[in-house]
């Protein structure tokens, strides 16, 4: 009997069929592959965070092969000459070893660290998009909370990673963390002793906690929450911008397979490429300059990574107000650091988590929403967002105020006071400005809908007045007005947007299309002669 010939074209189908018969995955996968992703660019910001997290896992696994989380004292004999013969913890020695003696270690360490910064930056930018467009409204309040928690988990994860190498900067950071724990009234000392296993630095205990926290526990929780984040996204489907053909009951875009898969895969490569360039070209966290952690070693310009810097800033701005309370024959002290580093983050977490519910309450809007809102259409929310961003930026800049003072020749004291005053004055100002700008943009939209698009053609009336000719967007009534409803989406404001003139010249550096050649005047053409002043 003749054996059937192997047909390579049939192979993928045959394998898939084999798997489907055993796993019955076809119908759930078909559902997933058919999920629709909207096309708008602002929907890709969260992807940056997801892709940098994947890169964090990959590079982190590599680093874990060579890192030793131990405070055991060793003498360094590696390649970096200026530290040879210095006694240091094994953790720091292994981090140096990764940087100088493991092939590719430094570039992967740097990619890992840059990815962490990008992960947090992308989370924040993504969160701003969600906030300003109202994507967190019912039914997506839970997903907002999950995303918000992801920021704080990333915050913890990043801090643990920053602390692990046991260089002098990590040690300074841990010392500050210890001071923050100690500032909690009544239980502060117990919290600190429990975490450090005694008086700071307390030996190996903290490294075990940080290491297991950083490589297993927190990434595990983050991974779980990301899975939940995406599962909710699939279950509830995407939001979308309003526009032609887009309603509360549909979602328009590319399907997961093949359109979005190609798009997303390509974008992953771009994110990876940008991070690889960062890791290869820009130095980050040069631990070899910091030296091993010793309690007496500190440096000017000791800052945490950017996403923790707002807490550093709040601490720098806090006036030295200390509260002493006597209760039951015991004296209790509430140090000033308690307010900016324990109370403030607590308030921020609570307010952020509950924001969707607070807004529902105050705006009396408990309806289902799948269509997004333009920031200009909800001036109050836009104002609050601008206020929050300003608050965060003032604190973050204050976290680096000594660097700013040094590089721009400003007095450090002036920077501190500018931060204090700015923290109180600028957020309300930002609220007011954002609110007014939103109203102004709204008004302009309504104006165009009523009067038409500005053509840029100026007409002189018989009485001498000048008016600009408007192109109405529909047939106007006897007053020249049109009554078009606002649809919550972009109103055309230029003639080329409504096809009345050619499209804008495309091309960033070189025009893709050439403008039309001016018509040459023929020599024999008769030109009219007009005497100036008389007609």
């Amino acid at each position, binding site marked *: 009997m003749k054996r059937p010939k192997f047909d390579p074209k049939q192979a993928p189908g045959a394998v898939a069929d084999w798997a489907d018969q055993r796993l019955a995955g076809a119908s759930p996968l078909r559902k997933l592959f058919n999920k629709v992703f909207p*096309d708008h660019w602002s929907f890709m910001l969260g992807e940056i965070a997801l892709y940098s997290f994947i890169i964090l896992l990959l590079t982190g696994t590599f680093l874990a092969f060579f890192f030793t989380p131990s405070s055991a004292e060793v003498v360094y004999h590696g390649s970096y000459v200026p530290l040879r013969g210095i006694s240091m913890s094994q953790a720091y020695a292994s981090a140096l070893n990764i940087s100088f003696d493991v092939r590719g270690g430094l570039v992967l360490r740097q990619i890992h660290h840059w990815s962490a910064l990008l992960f947090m930056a992308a989370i924040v930018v993504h969160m701003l998009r969600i906030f300003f467009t109202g994507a967190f409204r019912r039914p997506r309040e839970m997903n907002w909370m999950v995303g918000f928690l992801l920021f704080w988990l990333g915050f913890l994860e990043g801090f643990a990673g920053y602390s692990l190498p046991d260089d002098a900067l990590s040690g300074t950071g841990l010392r500050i963390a210890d001071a923050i724990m100690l500032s909690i009234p009544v239980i502060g000392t117990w919290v600190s002793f429990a975490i450090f296993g005694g008086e700071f630095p307390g030996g190996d205990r903290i490294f075990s906690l940080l290491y297991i926290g950083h490589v297993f526990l927190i990434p595990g929780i983050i991974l779980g929450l990301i899975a939940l984040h995406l599962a909710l996204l699939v279950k509830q489907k995407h939001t979308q911008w309003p526009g032609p053909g887009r309603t509360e009951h549909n979602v328009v875009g590319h399907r997961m397979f093949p359109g979005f898969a190609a798009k997303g895969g390509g974008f992953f490569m771009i994110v990876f490429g940008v991070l690889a360039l960062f890791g290869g070209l820009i130095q980050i966290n040069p631990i070899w300059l910091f030296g091993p952690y010793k309690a007496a070693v500190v440096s000017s310009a000791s800052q945490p990574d950017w996403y923790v810097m707002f807490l550093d800033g709040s601490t720098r701005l806090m006036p030295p107000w200390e509260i002493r309370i006597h209760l039951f024959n015991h004296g209790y002290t509430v140090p000033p650091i308690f307010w900016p580093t324990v109370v403030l983050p607590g308030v921020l977490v609570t307010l952020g988590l509950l924001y969707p519910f607070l807004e529902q309450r105050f705006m009396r809007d408990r309806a289902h929403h799948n269509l997004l809102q333009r920031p200009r259409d909800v001036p109050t929310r836009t104002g609050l967002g601008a206020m929050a961003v300003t608050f965060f930026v003032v604190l973050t800049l204050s976290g680096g105020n000594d660097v700013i003072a040094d590089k721009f020749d400003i007095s450090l004291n002036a920077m501190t006071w500018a931060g204090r005053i700015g923290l109180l004055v600028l957020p309300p100002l930002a609220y007011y400005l954002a609110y007014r700008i939103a109203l102004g943009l709204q008004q302009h939209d309504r104006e165009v809908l009523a009067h038409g698009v500005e053509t840029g053609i100026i007409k002189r009336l018989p009485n001498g007045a000048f008016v600009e000719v408007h192109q109405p967007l529909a047939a106007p009534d006897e007053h020249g007005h049109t009554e078009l409803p606002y649809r919550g989406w972009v109103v055309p404001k230029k003639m080329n947007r409504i096809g009345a003139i050619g499209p804008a010249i495309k091309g960033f550096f070189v025009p893709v299309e050439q403008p039309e050649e001016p018509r040459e005047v023929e020599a024999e053409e008769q030109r009219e002669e007009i005497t100036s002043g008389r007609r």
Partner: protein
Amino acid sequence: MTAAPVDRRPRRTLRQKLGTGARLVAALVLAGGVYTAFAPSSHAEDTKQLSVAAQKGQQLYNTSCISCHGKNAEGVQDRGPSLVGVGSAAVEFQVTTGRMPMSRQEAQASRKTPHFDDTQAKQLGAYIESLGGGPQIPDGDLRKGDVAAGGELYRVNCSSCHGFSAGGGALSSGKYAPSLHPSTDRQIYAAMLTGPQNMPVFGDNELTPQEKMDIISYVQNMKSDQSPGGWDIGAIGPTTEGLAIFLIGITALLFATLWIAGKS
């Protein structure tokens, strides 16, 4: 009738006149010689000891420094401190870094293009040294130290103001610790020895000359270090790193999202 007065005194001979003169001169010489031999002679010695370099230094001092530091370097109220006893190390540091002559009174004198060259700075130093002594920079190679030991000393003693990467840092009220990147070996040594402006003095009991040379070796080694990780973006830690991830990273990826969304 009157007769012309006649000089009745016996005429002194020329010889007699000469003799009187000679005796007078001899007496003066004797008196002067005895005085010179017995009188305190500090003034004479003082001018004698000024070396050629110090004399030149004095000339430079009298043209460029005297208005603030006074005629005898005793200082002028609200303008400049006394320089008696500061030593040549302080003078050399201030002059070769361009801090002196100072352009204006402010929180702190900053480094600028030096007004005098190294020879002139040494001459000024010699003059000030001659007024009341003080610390001096040793001659010879100041970089013969142990880099690793210097690094440890640097991190304990210097980095709290100058920063881990010696790029400088802010102090209170507009004062600052300057960057060490343009500093020479002699300048670093002189700074430790004399504690200019807001810097504490690290005398030879705090940091021995060998330890000072260790630190100099470390600082100069760090400067020649070709930052192995790439562009060091100022080597001032997480501040510029955070700026870079937003200005370069997020910006580039936002353009990427616009590009991808524009294609679909």
